[in-house]
């Protein structure tokens, strides 16, 4: 998957991205932090939704737990940011393992809705916890250093994408793909499906939690509604599926493009931005149901017939 050319291109892209705070304005850097963390979330979702074929709508639980773990450790126990992140990751991964064991037995829409239920329940639990500030929320220590938050988000995205790239070619990733294609057959061939699925869930939870923790510290305020926001989870899914689920770079490129489109739309025509965003999604699903990654690979050979073929294959 990762040949020499793509590695070099990826390295150049990372170097370019890393230099953005040197010349970019504050607005650009702040947009970058959001875009990078969104890309990380899409990439983490890709592990479950793209590779393993389990469409999770509960990744926002891990985001929220990461945010709250960080916030509680920093505000209630006076811990440094790093320890807070570790606490958030510990909370999210243990939740992923505990919840994953029962609900990863469900498939397709049943899994999706069960994870959505977990998200709602978790938001409710946290908003009744005294230590988490109940439904008022928590205020974190103020810091104003956008450049370092930017570099931290970039580092997280690079690490997460590196893990996915490794998984794509490893025995672990092959096992996940085998589970996606036919779980019974994969088990028969000696893949420990339960172990693989829970491991992927836990890994996705860890990355999502770190992104949540970084965002909590950066925005300096969290409450249950914003930390356990299921529309955030829908955005992860859209970004990943738009780019190409089950590919290494698809989710990253897809979420950069969609974040940019949304930002431009919101700046130009604020009222109709969400409307046009919806139109983009509808059109994208009709014309490129396998995502950008497939479009880039296939379309140069066959041209516009690529779109006709997609409609013929999926339509009636």
């Amino acid at each position: 998957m990762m040949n020499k050319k793509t590695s070099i291109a990826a390295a150049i892209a990372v170097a370019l991205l890393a230099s953005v705070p040197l010349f970019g304005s504050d607005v650009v850097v702040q947009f970058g932090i959001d875009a990078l963390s969104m890309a990380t979330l899409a990439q983490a979702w890709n592990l479950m939704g793209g590779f393993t074929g389990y469409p999770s709508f509960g990744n926002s639980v891990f985001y929220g737990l990461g945010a709250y773990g960080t916030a509680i450790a920093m505000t209630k126990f006076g811990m440094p940011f790093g320890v807070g992140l570790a606490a958030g990751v510990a909370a999210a991964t243990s939740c992923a393992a505990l919840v994953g064991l029962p609900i990863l037995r469900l498939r397709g829409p049943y899994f999706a809705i069960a994870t959505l239920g977990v998200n709602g329940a978790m938001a409710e639990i946290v908003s009744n916890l005294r230590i988490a500030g109940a439904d008022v929320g928590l205020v974190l220590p103020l810091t104003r250093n956008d450049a370092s938050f930017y570099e931290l988000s970039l580092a997280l995205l690079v690490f997460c994408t590196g893990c996915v790239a490794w998984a794509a070619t490893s025995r672990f990733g092959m096992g996940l793909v085998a589970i996606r294609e036919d779980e019974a057959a994969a088990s028969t061939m000696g893949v420990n499906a339960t172990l693989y699925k829970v491991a992927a869930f836990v890994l996705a939870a860890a990355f999502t939690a770190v992104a949540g923790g970084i965002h909590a510290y950066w925005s300096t305020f969290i409450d249950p509604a914003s930390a356990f926001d299921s529309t955030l989870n829908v955005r992860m899914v859209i970004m990943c599926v738009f780019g190409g689920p089950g590919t290494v770079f698809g989710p990253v490129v897809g979420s950069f493009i969609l974040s940019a489109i949304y930002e431009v739309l919101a700046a130009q025509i604020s009222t109709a931005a969400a409307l046009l965003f919806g139109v983009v999604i509808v059109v994208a699903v009709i014309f490129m149901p396998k995502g950008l990654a497939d479009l880039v690979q296939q379309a140069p050979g066959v041209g516009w017939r690529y779109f006709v073929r997609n409609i013929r294959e999926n339509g009636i």
Partner: protein
Amino acid sequence: MVLPQILLNGVLLGGLYGLMALGMALVWGVLNIVNLSHGALIMLGGYAVYFLFTVTGLDPFAALPVAMAAMFAFGYLLQRRLLNLVVRSALLNTLLITFGLDVVLTYLAQLAFTADFRTINPTYSGANFAVAGLTVPVVRLAAFGIAIALAATLWFVLARSPLGRAIRATSQNLTAARLYGVDPGSLYAVTFGIGAALAGAAGGLYGMVSNLTPYIGAELTAKSFVIAIIGGLSNPFNVILGGVFVGVAESLAALYLGPTFTNVVGFGLLVGILVVRPSPSIRAA
């Protein structure tokens, strides 16, 4: 008398919930599309009845069939011109396109109708009568009756009419239905149209018992989804029962746990049911 009154309220509200889920369950069972824009269709139906009532002065219950006809036409065209292009795509893609539709419909409604709260308020909206010490609100009782009537009609159409046979055949085996002369493109459009019409009726009734805003769609979609799974996709009456179950559970939760918990109860029930009984009999209408 608090508990019996709460139970009655839950049952009456639950009938309306069941009607909301009816169209979603039909479309899901036949087309295998989990329609995330279903709540937005409910919202549009609500506005249709609202404007028929406020602009033309039509009684809201008389406006319901008009709104249902309009929503049928809208749903038919939506499926025929748009969703038929992707109907055989992977589940995730149909989830996404209907989510995109939900966003489009929500914000079109916001542009057209503004974000103001609106309620369909006929003169008798506050009327109620007492039976055995219980207060029965007239509008909610009528909504419950209409939900049952529509479920019965749907059951009759599916079980007894040639159209229903074609729908059931297509949901069981697309290829075989085609061989027997069913045109799946138009049949899917008709089915989606029926689903949209049911959503329209639910929306009109919802507008009489609660507030309409362009943003109610997402919550109603989630509720319909939960009820469709609890009730199963095979029998309209089971869907209504599923709605009553959720309505009663929510009312009891509001009474004993506090009103902030009502929305979680439905999901909590669902996760519990799914985990205990992971593969309910669900396909086929």
